[in-house]
């Protein structure tokens, strides 16, 4: 995912989806009109794909419309064996390296936390969940008993007990 060139099929999908996206359509219209300074960080690259580059960024990042975000996250997190189900931090670092959309970090965190493969396979160092539980103290003796099998099996005795 850290490659500088974005896959062509995904890139054409993104380019086709931009006019249907509420936010990025507004941005691209504004950039085309070149009227205001409001969206000055956005521009079109050589493939006519909307990109985002701030003054301190070394390279432009591709703007991903809402419908394409899941595909980008799948590729970065779990679809490929090479991606290897990285953590929230590593996935967001890889995605934010080449892509941009509003609330990208919140979306990546939610996507990784909801990944079933990660949740099933990885151990957790979080505290376990618990509930308040007080068992009642019984008052008269010899009225409430608990029973259980002895953790066996023990060897069978001469009296055939076990």
């Amino acid at each position: 995912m850290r490659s500088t060139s974005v896959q062509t099929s995904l890139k054409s999908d993104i380019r086709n989806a931009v006019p249907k996206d509420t936010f990025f359509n507004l941005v691209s219209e504004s950039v085309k009109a070149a009227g205001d300074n409001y969206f000055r960080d956005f521009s079109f690259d050589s493939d006519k794909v909307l990109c985002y580059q701030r003054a301190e960024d070394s390279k432009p990042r591709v703007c991903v419309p809402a419908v394409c975000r899941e595909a980008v996250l799948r590729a970065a997190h779990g679809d490929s064996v090479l991606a290897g189900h990285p953590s929230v931090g590593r996935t967001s670092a890889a995605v934010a390296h080449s892509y941009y959309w509003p609330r990208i970090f919140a979306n990546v965190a939610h996507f990784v936390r909801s990944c079933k493969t990660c949740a099933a396979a990885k151990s957790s160092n979080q505290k376990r969940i618990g509930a308040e539980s007080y068992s009642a103290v019984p008052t008269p003796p010899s009225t409430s008993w608990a029973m259980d099998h002895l953790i066996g099996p023990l060897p069978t005795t001469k009296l055939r007990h076990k």
Partner: protein
Amino acid sequence: MTWVDLTSKTIVAAPAHSDKTSAEDIAALTFKEISCRFGLPLTLTMDNDVRFVGAVWRALWRLCCTELKFTSSYNPQSDPAERANQQVLEGLRVAVATVVQYDEWGLALPHTTFGLNSHISAATGVSPFEFAHGSWVSPRVPLTMGLDDAVSEEQPQEAIDLAQQVASRHFAAADSMAAGQVRLCRLLQSRSTLAVVKVGDQVWLDSIHVKVAVPYKLTAQWFGPFVVLEAKGAQETLDLPATFGKAYRRVNIRRLKFFEALDAQFGTADQLPRPLPGVDGSDMYEVSRICASLILEG
């Protein structure tokens, strides 16, 4: 087979015959060891063993007006008999190592339980014998101790005193047990995050205690997600597939973690992001500082 009185912590242990381990046989054994000696129990606590969840077992105790309480599997906090098992097994191991042969452990069982019942229980502060019978029974102290005073009829005041002593001992033990419960709950709370599991929630089940064919090291850490069918405090009933076995359906909340489903609106919730308020009160989409710091951390 081991039984524990929840109040006095008296331990009763009896060997089961090797070809008699059905629900009826265990009921007969319980009747012989508990009901004949101590009277019919009001409540009986046990885990989700296949013999205990059967219709025969439940019907038998319903006829005796005994309330059955089922604990979740692998949760010794709620089933004192699991702890007592360990104590009895420990005692047997000692006896087998020093006194009897391996195939004669049944002979050592009465002595082991007598020893356990004559020692002070941490929960009540007195030994089970002292709690239940009002006198301290120990191999080191003669059993006739104190009888000289008790037989003289001219001193009824002493009998009253003794009765009061027994009664106050019960109250003190109940207080001690309640304090122990509070201590245990505080300990458990410090090790866990309080959470409420509701019916219909989807949860993961810790794979420890679940027997699977996959090699231990490569088993998934969590199984699921499963739907919660019934939520009762710390004890939840899960909609587990039949391969998990009937006894495992009721589990403790500590063995669960919540399942976070991918938002159904993900990728389709297409709306304008909320602008940040600018210095002059105008809307602002400039979030470069926030993003840059997140990238550096990420």
